[in-house]
């Protein structure tokens, strides 16, 4: 346990080594990065298993003391951290391995692996942080990595714009988090998590303030996790390389928002309003993103909206006190969504096409990819006995038992939509007649996908009410005061959910394979709805109109203010100084007589003053 700090250091080393030996190492960068991230993964596994025996671990050191203010740094291992470590390092390791094949033709492959190393370092350090300052620090660092990797193809204008958008939109959320940190320090006098929670428990922070702080923290989480209304950056972030989408924008970084809320969960529990906010935001985001995903045609964008929707699920779970459910879904989602992205990447790699309407019949050519993609889709759709089934049940049960029936209904409907859009995607890409040639991806790409597929299928069994709630029991050993509501879901919920899931799959099959239901029956009947969904509820347009244009107007006002008033003042000042200078030049004429006259007038003035004050006449 004492060597837990090695886990973030290994990817950092990978980053530094690749960064400084980039021209030499070139294509071998992938191997170096994979080895280091593999080592980090092994380390995480060791930490996980030793946590089973040794329990929680926390080491802290004073970083700096300013007067009475003491800031600490440290590492912490508790169930949540250990789980996140394993998820992050595992997905990172697999993505590294996958990228060796995927990125082999790219000239900047070494840079790519360096960024991946930096990201893995930041993310592992983020999940091990025992205080908010450190969390914030690495929180921003993963944001930077996301920016760098989204903009990896910076020569494409869309990628450039997407990187900027990702950075700026998440920054809006980060401001909320930063303000929350300031408020917490002001209120609790410390940034360490246990200190904050004990302050909240002892009533040192007023309930109103707790609500404000919790909601501000949630704003940060909203930005990072792409929740409504700050979700717009996530679909655009798909301009980055596909392994990056799998690692950062599906499995790990976007889950950081959920992780943050989970970490600060005791604070949220103390505020009913904050919980409601989280639940409603999550539920709305889930159905909102799922409806958009119905009509998208870009394979990665569908997955991106699906990610937003699933993250909404997690937030919904947290908002309905389903801590275990959220963490559980985070875990399973990390596996199957990473799998789906990698499989999508494999498709793109093979077919060089992202529009699903132009793809088709790939099932015969890419047998491996098709199978893996099917497994991932089944898991995401919540097909019985797949991992997504258990975790989604857990969330539904949590929403139901918290008596939020509207949100429960939305979540159920979202489950149906999810399976429908996933299989629409699957059937359009893999079923039917082939259009154009494609070659199966290399083994370095298939093996990581296979590993993820196994996890996507079976990871659900770590938490079921049939065999045992291992995950829930283990999470209860957290050092922080989290209340675990053990929910026994009524039997009809999983049955209904399964029915909806299978119904969605069936509908997709009927529409896109048998074609007994015409493609466009929905489209034909309600064109306007389709139009709205296709334009993603016009959110981008609204933001453009309200914020961007508004800001332009505002900026123009200040620009003119600056130009005429500020610069005018400055010019006036300059004029005064210039005139003074010119006067000074005239005084400095070199005329000794003038100098003498001035010096003499000085003497006269001194004499006058002395005489006026009485002087020696007294």
């Amino acid at each position, binding site marked *: 346990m004492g060597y837990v700090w090695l886990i973030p250091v290994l990817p950092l080393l990978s980053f530094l080594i690749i960064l400084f030996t980039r021209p030499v190492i070139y294509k071998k960068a992938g191997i170096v990065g994979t080895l280091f991230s593999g080592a980090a993964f092994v380390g995480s596994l060791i930490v996980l298993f030793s946590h089973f025996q040794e329990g929680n671990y926390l080491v802290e050191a004073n970083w700096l003391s300013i007067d009475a203010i003491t800031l600490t740094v440290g590492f912490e291992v508790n169930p949540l951290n250990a789980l996140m470590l394993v998820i992050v390092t595992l997905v990172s390791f697999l993505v590294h391995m996958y990228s060796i094949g995927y990125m082999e033709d790219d000239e900047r492959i070494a840079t790519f692996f360096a960024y991946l190393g930096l990201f893995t370092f930041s993310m592992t350090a983020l999940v091990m942080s025992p205080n908010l300052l450190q969390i914030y620090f690495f929180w921003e660092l993963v944001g930077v990595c996301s920016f760098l990797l989204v903009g990896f193809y910076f020569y494409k204008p869309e990628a450039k714009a997407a990187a900027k958008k990702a950075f700026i939109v998440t920054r809006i959320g980060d401001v909320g988090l930063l303000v929350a940190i300031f408020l917490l320090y002001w209120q609790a006098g410390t940034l360490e998590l246990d200190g904050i929670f004990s302050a909240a428990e002892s009533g040192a922070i007023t309930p109103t303030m707790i609500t404000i702080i919790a909601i501000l923290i949630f704003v940060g989480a909203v930005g990072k996790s792409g929740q409504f209304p700050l979700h717009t950056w996530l679909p655009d972030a798909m301009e980055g390389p596909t392994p990056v989408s799998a690692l950062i924008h599906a499995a790990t970084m976007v889950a950081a928002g959920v992780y943050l809320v989970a970490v600060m969960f005791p604070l949220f529990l103390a505020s009913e309003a904050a919980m409601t906010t989280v639940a409603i935001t999550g539920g709305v985001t889930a159905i909102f993103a799922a409806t958009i995903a119905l009509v998208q045609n870009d394979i990665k964008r569908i997955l991106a909206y699906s990610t937003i929707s699933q993250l909404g699920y997690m937030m919904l779970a947290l908002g309905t006190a389903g801590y275990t459910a959220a963490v559980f879904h985070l875990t399973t989602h990390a596996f199957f969504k990473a799998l789906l992205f990698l499989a999508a990447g494999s498709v793109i790699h093979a077919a060089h096409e992202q529009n699903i309407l132009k793809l088709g019949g790939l099932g015969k050519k890419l047998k491996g990819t098709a199978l893996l993609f099917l497994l991932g889709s089944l898991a995401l759709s919540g097909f019985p006995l797949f991992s997504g089934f258990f975790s989604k049940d857990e969330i539904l049960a949590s929403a139901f038992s918290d008596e939020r029936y509207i949100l429960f209904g939305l979540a159920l409907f979202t489950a149906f939509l999810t399976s429908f859009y996933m299989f629409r995607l699957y059937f359009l890409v893999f079923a039917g007649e082939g259009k154009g040639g494609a070659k199966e991806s290399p083994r370095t790409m298939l093996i990581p996908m296979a590993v993820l597929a196994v996890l996507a299928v079976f990871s659900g069994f770590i938490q079921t009410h049939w065999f045992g709630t291992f995950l829930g029991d283990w999470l209860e050993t957290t050092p922080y005061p989290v209340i675990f509501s053990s929910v026994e879901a009524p039997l009809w919920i999983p049955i209904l959910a399964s029915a909806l899931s299978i119904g969605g799959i069936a509908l997709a099959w009927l529409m896109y394979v048998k074609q007994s239901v015409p493609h466009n029956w929905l489209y034909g009947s309600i064109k306007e709805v389709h139009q709205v969904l296709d334009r993603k509820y016009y959110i981008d347009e609204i933001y453009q109109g309200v914020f961007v244009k508004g800001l332009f107007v505002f900026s123009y006002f200040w620009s003119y203010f600056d130009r005429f008033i500020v610069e005018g003042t400055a010019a006036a000042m300059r004029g005064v100084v210039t005139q003074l200078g010119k006067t000074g030049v005239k005084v400095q004429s070199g005329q000794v007589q003038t100098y003498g006259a001035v010096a*003499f007038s000085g*003497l*006269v003035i001194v004499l*006058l003053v002395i005489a006026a004050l009485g002087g020696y*006449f007294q």
Partner: protein
Amino acid sequence: MNGELIVFVILFLITISGALFMLNLSKVVHMVMALVLTFLGIAGLYVTLAAEFVAVVQILIYSGAITIIMLFGIMLTKHSDEEKKTSFAKKGIVLSGIAIFFLIMFSAIQNLSLGSQATTLHENNTEQIGIMLFTEYVIPFELVSVVLLVALVGAVILAKRDDAKEGE
């Protein structure tokens, strides 16, 4: 009004009028000549102050040597006949400053009297100065001789035509 006062008034008038001529004449040579008048007047004032030796030195050095040097200076340089007029404003400012200075000083000294008078200054005046110079003030005296020597050498070097440089 005794004779002493009459002599003083005459010398005073000579001195001041010489200075006034100096300021108001237009030709440079005339100005220097007017100044000789002032120097002579001052020498006379010295005599009334029982300083015969200083009066003689005054005539020798000022009326003689310095005036001659000035005349040489004037002849070695070119002068426009008319002294160019300085601007009226500048003159006014300087004049008013000097007037204030004069008034303050005048009010300070008009009734100044320190009470005592030296009475033996005129007895062997030259001898007394000589004794003083060669006893108590012998070091300043020697230093002054150095100053004169340095001034002599300096003046020669400064005024010498810099032939070597011009030849290059």
